[in-house]
């Protein structure tokens, strides 16, 4: 082979490779990968996340409690402003009602059975925007508690996104209600000692960094 052809090959091969790479990158088959790259995953910050619950006591007052250990992640697009999914894990042992005796009772087998079922989880199945709002979504998913998995629907509001190109914080708040008897937590429902419907307000704050 003449030397001129060798020189041509040396230049032609890298150029051909470059052209191939550019054309492949532009092909429709790789579009989803580009979309994934635009997603931002915010790791939940347990210090600034909490799950508050409210339930009626003895048919009278509304009694509040919360879980302090909330972990998981929020996957978003549009720089953290639009949620794609929420994966949330609540540590049952972190229950806090302000009274140790009540914490023990709620941790016990009549309620959250925290020794046997150590976590409550939420996995997202779908998200649709609330009509007329650019900061609220209806999030559907599966809640697993006491070994029972049930679908739930929550209204989630973006409370804020802040940061820069290197690190960001995103905040969301979910409001929904569940019937505790659906998960087998029926103690006190029939005799009215404690309400069946539990209202939840879950505050989430996640961190993202490069």
């Amino acid at each position, binding site marked *: 082979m003449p030397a001129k052809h060798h020189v041509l090959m040396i230049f032609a091969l890298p150029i051909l490779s470059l052209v191939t790479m550019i054309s492949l990158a532009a092909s429709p088959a790789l579009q989803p990968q580009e979309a994934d790259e635009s997603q931002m995953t915010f790791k939940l910050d347990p210090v600034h996340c909490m799950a*508050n619950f409210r339930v009626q006591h003895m048919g009278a007052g509304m009694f509040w409690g919360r879980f302090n250990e909330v972990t998981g992640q929020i996957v978003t697009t549009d720089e953290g402003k639009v949620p794609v999914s929420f994966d949330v894990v609540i540590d049952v*042992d972190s229950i806090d009602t302000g009274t*140790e005796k009540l914490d*023990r009772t709620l941790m016990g*087998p009549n309620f959250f059975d925290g*020794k046997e079922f150590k976590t409550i989880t939420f996995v997202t199945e779908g998200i649709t925007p609330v009509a007329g709002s650019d900061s609220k979504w209806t999030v559907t998913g599966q809640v697993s508690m006491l070994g029972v998995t049930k679908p739930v629907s929550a209204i989630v509001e973006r409370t804020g996104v802040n940061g820069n190109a290197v690190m960001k914080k995103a905040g969301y708040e979910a409001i929904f209600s569940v019937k505790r008897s659906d998960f087998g937590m029926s103690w006190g429902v*029939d*005799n009215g000692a404690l309400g069946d419907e539990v209202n939840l307000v879950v505050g989430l704050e996640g961190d993202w960094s490069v």
Partner: protein
Amino acid sequence: MFVMFLLSFLLPVLAGAGILALGWLAPPIRKVQWLSLSTLGVGLSVGLALSYLSESGLPSYPPARSEGWIMLAALACIPFAVLLSFTEKLEFPWVELTGLATGVVVGLMPIISGSELLPEIPKPLFPDMGIMAHAKLVLELAFGIIITIRLAQVRTGPTLPTAFAICFTGASACAMASGWISLSIMFGVLSAISGAAALFARFAGSPNIGRGSAAVSAGLLIFLATACWYKTSAPPEVTWWVWVLLVGAPLLLLPLENRVVNRLPSAGAYWIRVIVVAIPVVWVLVRIFPAIAGEASSGSDEMDEMMKMYQ
């Protein structure tokens, strides 16, 4: 609340006491030896099963939640008490084998209940119970049942039912302090039925409670105490040795089976035995009272602030 009291406590106690009245007081039945010997065991088991049913409903098999073993244990205790009443005359090594076999069966329940021939690693009987904890339960059941059967052979009448009534009361308080309301009620049912047995025994000519009933009383006390220890977050007042004191209190009757106490008038000997069993239980009750009353509570400042926001 009255409906809860009625279904979870009063009706099970009445059912258990009714069985006792039939077995020990009704003339035609009390003459049938195996019925009389198994009456207390059956009464306790039925009372516990009814109370569990009212509190938690019927569990699946094997139980999806570990407290389901309580119901299954209660149901298993009925034929167990009856069967043991037929072995009343069998001596060494039957009593020892009975205790050991019961302990092994209970300890291996998670494996026995596995439907597959080679089950995957089964869930423990109660949460966080390792192999050593299962082995300990086997030995505790074996030891407790053997000693209690031996005691029942030498001590007839109200002494043993009274001792167990006292211990079940202490256990009920411990379960309440640990935050397991249903178990507290179930221990209360067992205590009331044992108390009724002590009362009926006075009018029934001091019957032998039988080795079946003795084994059921001791077995349920040990089994439920283990359930409470592993299923709840016990307060600092309810330590492992508090449970040991409660569960071991009936065994204090063993050294009191001596010539000195036996020579005393029967009422005097009865009260000495009862007081000796009651001392550790009363001490436990005094110790755990703050946990039951909620005096040891302390809330976080953040929670207090949040509560104020909603007031």
